């Protein structure tokens, strides 16, 4: 009978012991959470003050970063956006550290994976930001050059270049994050190839007259005509 009671009570004792052993971990987690929350707020405030001192918003305006975040429909000041990013990054980090304090094998693995993933996420973010800026820069260069050369479809051309570059950048970022890399590469190849083919067809059809003109212009009699013109072109300088 005594053995039977032991059989009944032992799991309860073990459970109580486990709970008793777990409570300090739980407390540690809560303390880390709360401390992390206040520390994150403090660090955010510190950075906001530093941004104000170094005139970060005005610098972002000049560098064109404000315009970029406006395009993403974000209307806060660049310093507030940066402060927010830092704050939420710290909150997530403290959350993971806090969970780690629970010393549960599953959560330990998850935390380890999270910290291993941070460099990848960071480089993907850098690729996205740098790529977005570069795509905008190249697209604007194409737009201005095409307008100055008298092309009628300058805006479409510039948007096509931007689209191609954004597809390329997204594929690079997803590949960096290792999110279904096989599917990403296949999707990228299909989308990129499709865009190139569509552009080739569009230019092929749209450029028939231009090509005719070029071929005609290189014929000998047209060259002679040009030579015989007595007037000269105006000089710019």
């Amino acid at each position: 009978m005594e053995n039977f009671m032991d059989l009944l009570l032992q799991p309860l004792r073990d459970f109580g012991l486990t709970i008793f052993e777990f409570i300090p971990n739980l407390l540690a987690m809560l303390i880390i959470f709360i401390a992390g929350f206040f520390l994150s707020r403090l660090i955010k405030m510190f950075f906001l003050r530093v941004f104000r001192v170094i005139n970060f918003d005005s610098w972002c305006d000049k560098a064109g970063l404000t315009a970029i975040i406006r395009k993403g429909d974000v209307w806060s000041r660049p310093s507030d956006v940066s402060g927010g990013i830092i704050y939420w990054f710290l909150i997530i980090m403290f959350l993971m550290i806090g969970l780690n304090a629970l010393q549960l094998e599953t959560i330990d693995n998850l935390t380890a994976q999270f910290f291993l993933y941070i460099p990848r996420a960071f480089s993907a973010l850098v690729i996205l930001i740098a790529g977005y800026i570069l795509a905008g820069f190249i697209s604007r260069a194409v737009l201005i050059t095409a307008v100055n050369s008298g092309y009628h479809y300058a805006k479409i051309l510039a948007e096509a270049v931007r689209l191609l570059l954004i597809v390329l950048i997204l594929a690079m970022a997803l590949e960096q994050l290792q999110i279904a890399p096989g599917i990403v590469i296949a999707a990228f190849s299909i989308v990129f190839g499709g865009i190139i083919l569509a552009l080739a067809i569009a230019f092929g059809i749209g450029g028939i007259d231009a090509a005719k003109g070029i071929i005609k212009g290189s014929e000998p009699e047209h060259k002679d005509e040009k030579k015989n013109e007595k007037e000269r072109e105006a000089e710019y300088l």
Partner: protein
Amino acid sequence: MENTDIIVGIASYNNAKTIGHVVKAVGAGLAKYFPDKRALIVNSDGGSKDGTPDIVRSATLDHAAIFLSHPVYPIHRISMPYIGIPGKGSAFRALFRQAVDLNAEACCVVDADLRSITPEWIELLLSPVIKNGFDFVAPFYSRHKFDGTITNSIVYPLTRTLYGRRVRQPIGGEFGYSGKMAEFYLSQDVWESHVARFGIDIWMTTEAIANDFKVCQTFLGAKIHDPKDPGSDLSDMLLQVVSTLFNLTERHYDKWKDERGSSDVPTFGFRYHVGLESVKVNAEKMLGIFRAGLKDLRHIWLDIMGPGDLGEIERIGRLSNGEFRFPAGLWVNVVYDFVVAYHRKVMSPEHLIRSLVPLYLGKTASFVIEAENMEQEGAEAEIERLCLEFENKKDYLVTNWK
């Protein structure tokens, strides 16, 4: 190498067809007007593939045939490749180096593609330095009313307004300068910028004026030369010249901020009327690019000019080709807006200046339409009016600069 009194520099790249004539004219000018000076002709070549340096070395002049009876002094000439960014500016840098190394008293540079150069050009470019003590001699040509549109609509009015001196052809191409001036140019660290290319002319003129060197101009008659290399298109030329001009504006703010009005610089040479070749201008094509800019570059122009001036630009964009006019006051605002945008780094300098091209073409088309039936004097009076508009609105630039 021993000291030399005069150095005449000729920058070249594939100019085999014309450089022989230029060397002969320079040689004749030196022999006729400076027979007692030790002179050297230096060809600074950018790696020509058509034997340009060989022609420089072999070009000979029959002095007896030209001067009838005149003592013949040998004039040495060398042809050397320059190093650095390919362009006229890098070629000039090598010439400045020669002038400093040989302790030259006076120098001048002439283009290698000139067809209208005469021996008198050498006298006109060098004498103000040798006989009158000037440090910098700018050229002054008779040009067709539709030639030199970047000079007439941007470079001359802006240089005159900023620095207060009326140098009519600040980017003319031929210049005279003293040894002291060459030494100053050589000591500047600008050879990795647009100064190494087409920016060299405006840089030389502006630095001479802004640094209080003695500046004058000299009338050379008509300038006729080979057509420009088709590879060097308008957009690139405008970028190199205007970018250098804006850079200098940034650099010499303290010199120009309080300057108001302008004064003539001493002008040498006998002014005479020259029959000029007619010039072909396609105003319709220019207006096409202006309107394309209005449609596609609107968001860029809005960042640079703001809604006020852009609204005015949009208004004139709606006019028909025959009625199209780009008011002088509006053009002055546009140029000043671009200068300020460059100063405030609103966007990359290259994009900023290239986006000026359609506006510049709109202004040029307007001038072509207005001046179509004008004589040369009438067209010149229009440019004078534009310059006065620039001068009258200078406060707009100064106020917006801060």
